[in-house]
């Protein structure tokens, strides 16, 4: 360790290096090895052949990450990059880091340097749906929030490289992009959810890009952008939720009225000239609604087929597509109860292949379930009995699967466990 110290500059603050051999000694001795990136990135990396892990912050300026990327490129291939160093969260491999950084840098380059802070915030908020799909923790076989799998999914570079994350990762990705373009941003921690606070001269703005992923993916109006704390709490309280409840409410929160929201979005190119949001899927729904069909089932089948034809990329973002399809089916006049669920084939013990299942409790439709087959880009219709034989919910999702109640009574009786009421 002492021999390595001479390679570091004196006034380093930003990055804490740890080496597998030294990690525990560093931790126990509370030593930090600082580094300030200068032009000798490659040479420095070569002098640390045993370096196994670095811990890096996510709120630095762009120059910092440009230097960091050059450094990591020259490190050994076993290097891992951990996010944060006060409370480190999640680990990315060197490959994930470099891929993630490349994607993040492309996003930074898309931001017009002449935009004001509101425009930059709106742009990044709206980009998240394209970059990331929400991926619940249990799909990583994380036994509990806090184990290794749950931590890693929150690492921003891994999240961006994989295209999936949860609220912590999504908020952190936004924060790193906005920090790199000079917008001061903080992460707010509710009891079960995180979202963002952005600082402007006129006040602070609250945004939640996680809850707007479907909106931004499908180019709809953002519903969780620059709300006041009272607004979001009132809205979610009606749904019986408290995701945004904070122990300490930040001061000087300002909301943005709808007109201003539309002007901001128009100025960054995400609305039409009349300030309406593009929402191309509405055009498809309108087209289907103006057609003539024998019955609702035929109409629904036509819509689902065309949906996959027109939105194949969006369809792979399952959580967001699920939300949007429920809204579309309602607009198509489906009045019966629409239930959607992620299911797995019973042989898929590792939960590798999440499948979206849709059931509509309406005459002519209620005896079957549609599943979205992304390998063949089509919806398949399966009878409920056959569906129940082939598919199940996630092993850790112990809520009663919705389709059980539609099974013939004798089937239900045979399948009930002695623990059911």
């Amino acid at each position, binding site marked *: 360790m002492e021999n390595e110290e001479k390679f570091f500059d004196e006034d380093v603050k930003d990055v804490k290096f740890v080496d597998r051999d030294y990690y525990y000694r560093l931790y126990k001795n509370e030593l930090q090895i600082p580094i300030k990136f200068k032009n000798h990135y490659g040479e420095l990396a070569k002098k640390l052949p045993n370096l196994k892990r670095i811990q890096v912050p996510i709120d630095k300026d762009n120059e910092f990450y440009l230097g960091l990327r050059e450094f990591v490129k020259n490190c050994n291939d076993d290097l891992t990059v951990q996010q944060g160093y006060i409370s480190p969260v999640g680990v990315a491999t060197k490959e994930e880091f470099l891929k993630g950084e490349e994607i993040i840098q492309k996003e930074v380059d898309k931001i017009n340097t002449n935009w004001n802070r509101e425009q930059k915030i709106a742009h990044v908020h709206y980009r998240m749906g394209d970059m990331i799909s*929400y991926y*619940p*923790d*249990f799909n990583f076989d994380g036994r509990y*929030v806090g184990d290794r799998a749950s931590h890693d999914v929150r690492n921003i570079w891994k999240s961006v490289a994989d295209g999936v994350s*949860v*609220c*912590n990762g999504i908020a952190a990705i936004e924060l790193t992009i906005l920090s790199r373009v000079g917008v001061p941003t903080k992460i707010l921690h*509710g009891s*079960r*959810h995180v979202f963002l606070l952005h600082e402007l001269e006129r006040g602070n703005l609250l945004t939640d890009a*996680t*809850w707007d992923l*479907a*909106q931004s993916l499908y180019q*709809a*109006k953002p*519903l969780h952008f620059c709300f006041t704390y009272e607004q979001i709490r009132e809205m*979610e309280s009606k*749904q019986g*939720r408290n*995701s*945004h409840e904070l122990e300490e409410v930040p001061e000087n929160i300002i909301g943005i009225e709808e007109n201003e929201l539309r002007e901001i979005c128009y100025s960054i190119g995400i609305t039409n000239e009349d300030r*309406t*949001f593009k*929402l191309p*899927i*509405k055009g498809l*729904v309108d087209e289907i609604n103006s057609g003539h069909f024998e019955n609702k089932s035929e109409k629904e089948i036509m819509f689902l087929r065309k949906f996959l034809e027109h939105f194949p990329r969006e369809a792979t973002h399952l*959580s967001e597509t*699920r*939300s*949007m399809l*429920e*809204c*579309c089916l*309602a*607009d198509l006049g489906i009045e019966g109860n*629409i239930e959607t*669920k*992620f299911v797995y084939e019973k042989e898929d013990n590792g939960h590798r292949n999440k499948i979206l299942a849709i059931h509509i409790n309406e005459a002519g439709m209620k005896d079957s379930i549609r599943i979205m087959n992304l390998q063949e880009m089509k919806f398949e219709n399966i009878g409920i009995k056959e569906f129940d034989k082939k598919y199940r919910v*996630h092993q*850790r*999702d*112990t*809520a009663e699967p919705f389709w059980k109640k539609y099974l013939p009574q004798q089937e239900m009786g045979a399948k009930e466990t*002695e*623990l059911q*009421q």
Partner: protein
Amino acid sequence: MNWLRKIIDKIFNKNKVKLLEEPKKIEDKPNTFILELRQTANLEVDDGNGYGIIKRKSLKEMV
């Protein structure tokens, strides 16, 4: 084991915690049981990350 199940139901909200298997007795330890409980959840709606699914919002409200 019904008596044990009733106790568990009283202690825990029975909609939230599910007894997975019959409690197992330990042969050489009288009055001792092994329980395996799991918290139930519709995990996609309440997975602990506060994810919100837009429920039945009209597309007109999103334009």
